[in-house]
């Protein structure tokens, strides 16, 4: 029963989201398409981090580092003349490699210690981006004067308007949702669940804990790299400013407030947390603009008070042996 309803909800939402631009394009509301795209990127990041944090239960406070690595490597490739597909592909490769290199020593740590190390890595990455002038052009960002990042071309169609990117990001988010769901219900997803619940018991059940953790850690960075590449091909500009610790915290809050491990929760969390400040910024305007984080903060406190399990608490689907008769 529940499954049918959630599919219906998904289809309805998707329909609304794909028809929405047709109504607002060209009107004074067309800026919402841009906001929608940005929110979409956050949803993508949140879905990615949800694998690490929600499914495998690893507390990662430096996720933005991998968004940054994805964005910067895609920029460098794009400036070098590669098209969107190649630069994305290779930025994924680089991001995942670095993620696994970090994971190999760090995944031995648990809980708080893992959070501290990933936090440190996030800051180190930002500082390197800020100071490695010859490659990243430091705080001035990429591209340098005289260089440019190409747009995205799908077959012969060049994406130029915000509405194009809105649709592209919508499609990617949808794909990411399907992949997330498939991963969650797969064998490896079950292993993640076991590791999250009790590492020793998982190991004793024959689950190769370290390998399984590495897989989850790596998989989440693929999402970050894709989001990074989409971001720079759309913005055509990147500075280290976009990847502060604050951003990592935001993505973690999206997951925690939405409902750890719950896909619909994480998506709602991402839409809420990235969307509300953006919308408030536009709506409040003028003098009130500085109140937006106050309102935002109050919203977060209210959510924690009234929905401590998150907006949409995780309802793990019954595993293979799930009851047929009891529902």
């Amino acid at each position, binding site marked *: 029963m529940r499954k049918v309803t959630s599919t219906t909800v998904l289809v309805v939402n998707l329909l609304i989201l794909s028809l929405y631009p047709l109504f607002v394009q060209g009107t004074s509301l067309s800026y919402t398409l841009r906001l929608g795209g940005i929110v979409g990127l956050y949803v993508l990041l949140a879905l990615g981090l949800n694998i690490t944090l929600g499914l495998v239960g690893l507390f990662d406070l430096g996720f933005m580092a991998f968004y940054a690595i994805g964005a910067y490597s895609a920029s460098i490739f794009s400036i070098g003349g590669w098209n969107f597909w190649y630069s994305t592909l290779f930025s994924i490769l680089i991001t995942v490699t670095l993620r696994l290199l970090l994971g190999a020593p760090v995944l031995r740590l648990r809980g708080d210690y893992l959070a501290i190390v990933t936090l440190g890595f996030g800051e180190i990455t930002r500082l390197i981006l800020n100071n490695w002038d010859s490659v990243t052009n430091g705080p001035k960002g990429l591209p340098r004067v005289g260089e440019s990042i190409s747009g995205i071309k799908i077959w012969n169609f060049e994406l130029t308007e915000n509405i194009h990117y809105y649709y592209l990001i919508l499609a990617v988010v949808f794909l990411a949702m399907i992949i997330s769901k498939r991963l969650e219900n797969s064998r490896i997803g079950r292993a993640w669940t076991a590791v999250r619940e009790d590492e020793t018991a998982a*190991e*004793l059940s024959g689950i190769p804990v370290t390998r399984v953790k590495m897989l989850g850690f790596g998989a989440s960075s693929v999402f970050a790299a894709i989001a990074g590449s989409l971001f720079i091909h759309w913005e055509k500009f990147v500075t280290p400013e976009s990847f502060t610790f604050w951003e990592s915290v935001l993505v973690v809050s999206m997951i925690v407030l939405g409902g750890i491990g719950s896909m619909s929760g994480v998506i709602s969390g991402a839409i809420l947390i990235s969307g509300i400040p953006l919308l408030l910024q536009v709506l409040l305007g003028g003098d009130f603009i500085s109140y937006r984080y106050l309102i935002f903060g109050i919203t977060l406190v209210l959510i924690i008070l009234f929905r401590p399990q998150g907006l949409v608490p995780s309802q793990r689907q019954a595993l293979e042996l799930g009851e047929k008769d009891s529902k």
Partner: protein
Amino acid sequence: MLECHSISVSYGKKIRVLSEISLQVTQGEIVAFIGGNGAGKSTFLKTVSGLLKVEKGKIVFEGKEIQTLPAHKIACLGIAHVPEGRKIFARLTVLENLELGAFRERDQLRQRLEKVFTLFPILKDRRSQLGGTLSGGEQQMLAMGRALMSEPKLLMLDEPSMGLAPKLVEKIFQTIKEINSQGTTLLVVEQNAHQSLAIAHRAYVLETGRIVLEGSGENLLHNPSVQEAYLGGV
């Protein structure tokens, strides 16, 4: 089936917990391990299942040296370890717990499930309940059931009677005998020396990391020094 050749285990560099333990477990036996707190009983099981590494010595399971293998590979060879404190997946349902026990061997899942349910009918009634909401005894049964889902050749139980009501203790030991009668070899670590010696074919008495006595369960049960130390005298 399982042979340990003078294995020694230490925590850190200095604290030696097991020294020169040599023993064997033969197919079809129930072997009990008794001893007081800190004797090294749990450490021994953890070493066999690969959670801890030996400092020296060899562990041979069915002709294969396993002391260097990681725990998950040892589990796949057919050694199931029900750790102390049960370690069930508290936020998963009973059914999911059981299914994860069969993570490696997935054929005939339903038949195996039926077997576990026959052994522990209560788990069938509780199947969609979360593991953490079960009572202590039920959790112990779940932990044993989960281990049995992998159809182990050797089942190692760490303090299966810990913290349970006397009636349940009885039930657990009966089940151990039943599991054994279906062909599974068992290694049981216990503080409850009386019960475990009563069902064990053979037993070892462990004191501060050394085996001080061995013999049939029956013999040890009537051994004066065992009686004095572990059975509260007579």
